[in-house]
Structure formats: structure tokens, C-alpha cells
């Protein structure tokens, strides 16, 4: 991937993606924004100069159908795998569908399992996380408040010179539509990004993909073009999503899109099944379709590299 990107200043070359089939996504940002690296003065070693963060997604705690009758077990396995990483990530991002039915016990079980990683974790809700009686209050109580999130749970934070933005595109959806950010959130995003230098790497994370993977299956966000327009001026933009329970990547200019696998169950590729429901695979294959991806950022001229490692044998 991005073999042609030799120019060290080009942000496409900033992210190197290594995919292992496992249950989360590990991203490494190397070099952050130090101007000296951007000018190609020295090629920093990723491990030495960067920081790493992890993405996990779609744990669906509470799901108990054939595709995976024990989603808590596979989440536990993902966390164990995280603990075994040679370099401890700085933090973790969960791109939503933490629970299956927004039940208190499900939120509790997920928190307990994820807590074993002993990593600060940042969340955005999936549509399955906001189906409590109060339509989203349960999620906000647990995960929105601590980030002083606005509206249905959007917020931003900075880490090592990288600007992270958690977006919510699963609330107030309209019949017949796809995901939606809404005017209020877009206005907030415009304000949030104002004044930020274009050389600040930006990471947007939201549950539903911010590009149209499949309109027929609702795998896209109606007003994502407006959000992407707001980040157009930045030299390095990474979009992390979940929802589709499979890895997809796309590079468009300086924007890299990536969806993570689920820790619970896979879903079919668009067009390969009549509907996007949970996909049952033979029991001994399940862990091979739940994956960890590592993305390594190297400053200088290193292109992206993707490495697949199966959690279990394929």
C-alpha cells in the first residue's frame, strides 16, 4: 500500500498499516508533528520516536446467537493479546457497539473486560449503545460525561501533537437513510478545528464508516462530505470506523480511511449476502475473522506497510 509515496513530507506516507487477524487495531504514530521529521532531516525509528494507540470495535456484549455465543470470551482474548504486545499502547479507542442492547449489565461486563487492559480508553457509541429507554443517556452517563462530550457524545482531545476527534453518527437517524452527523455536531467540529495548524495530524473516529461502503446496507454517513470538507486542509487525516465488522481501507489524498474488525462476530462483504447480518463461520475459523491491525507511522520516506497475523489459524 502506498508504495509510490516516497516523499517524506507527504502525509499519506505517514501511516503504515500492519494487519494481524486478531481482535483490535493497533496504530502507531511515529514522529507526530515535529517539523524536523516532516522536512526529512532524519528518519525516525517508529518504535523509538512514536507512540502507539489501539483501536478495538464492535464488542457487542450481550449478543448470543450462533455467529458467536460467547462474545465476552473473544473480547477477553483480545484484551489478553493487547497485554502481550511488546510495546504498551498509550491508550485505546473503541469505535462503538460496545454492547448489543444497551443494558446496564452489558455495559458493566464490557467495562470490566476492557478494564483488564489497564489502558485509558476513549469511546464513541454505536447504534447498539443508544437503545436504552432514554435513547442514549446510559452511554452518556458512562462514557460521555468523563470527556465532557457534547450533544450525543462528541468530543476531542490531543495526544503527542495529534488531534483526536470522537464523532457520533448513529443518533437521530432518519428512515431510509444511513449514518448522520447532524448540523449541530458539524458546527461544533468546524469550531473545534479552527486555528489548528494544517500540519497537525488529525484522527477522526466514529462508529459508522464516514465513506459509503454500501448504500444498500446503510454502511455510510449521509453528511460525511461536510465533515471531510472541514479536514481537507490538513496534511494528515486518519478516519477510524467500525460497524461493518471487517477490515476495509481507502486512501483519498491525504485521508486514510480504515474500518476495524469486530471482537464479536464477522459480517459479510457488501454484495456477497442478502443482508449484512452476523455471519456464522466454522467454529475453528472464528478467531481468524476477528482481527488486530497495526498501523505504524514512520517519519521520513517510509511507505505504509500492512502485516496480517491471525489470532487463530485460518
Amino acid at each position, binding site marked *: 500500500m502506498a508504495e509510490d509515496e516516497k516523499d517524506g513530507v507527504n502525509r499519506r506516507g505517514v501511516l503504515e498499516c500492519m494487519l494481524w487477524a486478531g481482535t483490535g487495531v493497533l496504530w502507531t504514530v511515529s514522529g507526530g508533528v515535529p517539523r524536523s521529521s516532516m522536512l526529512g532531516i532524519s528518519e525516525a525509528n517508529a518504535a523509538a520516536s512514536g507512540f502507539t494507540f489501539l483501536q478495538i470495535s464492535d464488542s457487542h456484549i450481550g449478543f448470543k446467537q*450462533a455467529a458467536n455465543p460467547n462474545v465476552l470470551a473473544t473480547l477477553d482474548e483480545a484484551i489478553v493479546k493487547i497485554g502481550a504486545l511488546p510495546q504498551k499502547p498509550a491508550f485505546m479507542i473503541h469505535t462503538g457497539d460496545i454492547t*448489543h*442492547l444497551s443494558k446496564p449489565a452489558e455495559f458493566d461486563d464490557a467495562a470490566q473486560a476492557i478494564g483488564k487492559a489497564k489502558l485509558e480508553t476513549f469511546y464513541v457509541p454505536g447504534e*447498539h449503545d443508544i437503545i*436504552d429507554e432514554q435513547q442514549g443517556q446510559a452511554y452518556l452517563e458512562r462514557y460521555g460525561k468523563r470527556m465532557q462530550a457534547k450533544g450525543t457524545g462528541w468530543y476531542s482531545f490531543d495526544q503527542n501533537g495529534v488531534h483526536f476527534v470522537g464523532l457520533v453518527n448513529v443518533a437521530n*437517524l432518519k*428512515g431510509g437513510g444511513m449514518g448522520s452527523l447532524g448540523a449541530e455536531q458539524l458546527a461544533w467540529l468546524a469550531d473545534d478545528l479552527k486555528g489548528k495548524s494544517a500540519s497537525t495530524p488529525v484522527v477522526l473516529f466514529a462508529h459508522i464508516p464516514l465513506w459509503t461502503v454500501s448504500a444498500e446496507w446503510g454502511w455510510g454517513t449521509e453528511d460525511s462530505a461536510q465533515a471531510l470538507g472541514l479536514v481537507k486542509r490538513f496534511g494528515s487525516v486518519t478516519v477510524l470506523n467500525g460497524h461493518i465488522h471487517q477490515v476495509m481501507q481507502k486512501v483519498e489524498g491525504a485521508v486514510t480511511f480504515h474500518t476495524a474488525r469486530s471482537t464479536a462476530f464477522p459480517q459479510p462483504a457488501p454484495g456477497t449476502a442478502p443482508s449484512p447480518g452476523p455471519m456464522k463461520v466454522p467454529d475453528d475459523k472464528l478467531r481468524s475473522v476477528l482481527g488486530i491491525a497495526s498501523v505504524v507511522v514512520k517519519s521520513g520516506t517510509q511507505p505504509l506497510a500492512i502485516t496480517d497475523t491471525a489470532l487463530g489459524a485460518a
Partner: protein
Amino acid sequence: MSIKSLLIRAFLAGGTASCVIFAAVALPGEAHVTIDNFSFKLPVLTIHAGTTVSWENDDDIAHTVVATDGTFRSAALDTEDKFSFTFDKPGTFDYFCSLHPRMQGQIVVTP
């Protein structure tokens, strides 16, 4: 032709016509909509006012039943969960699944 056979033929004709009508419009009282494979199996259901419609989720993923105009909203329906709503007033009620908004249905309530 005997009167008996005439009566039988009339009865059968009327009965057949009635059956055709009842297939298109549910009887007052109850109606059922199955949810499966990311779809409402009866996308358009016509009922009389006073009918209670029950949705049952036979899919292996959760769904909801939400009226576009806010008239009704189910809880999260796991597999085998049900939701019922009684339609007292005539009208057309569009609804969708708030988890998967491409799933849409319609209840047409006649007086």
C-alpha cells in the same frame, strides 16, 4: 340446475370473494409482522382502526420499530422479542428500524 346447486355455487362464489378480501386486509383485532433478514416481512400492512399490530423479531440481530411521526417506538428487540401497538385512528404510519434505518415499513389504517 337445482336450487341446491345454485345455492352452493353462490355460496362458493361469495366465500371465495370473501377469502380474497381477507387476504389483503387483516381482520379487525390482531395483525402480525415478522422481522427477519434486515426487513419487515410485510412492508405494507393495511388494517382497520382498533387493530393491534404485533411485530416479532426473528432475525439474529436486534432491531427496533419506530414511527417516523413519533406515534410509537419499541424498546430494543432482541431475537424473539415482540412489540405491539394498537392503532385507534385511521391514517398512514411510516416506520423504520432506528438501528438500521434502511429497513422501512408502513401501516395503513382504514376506518
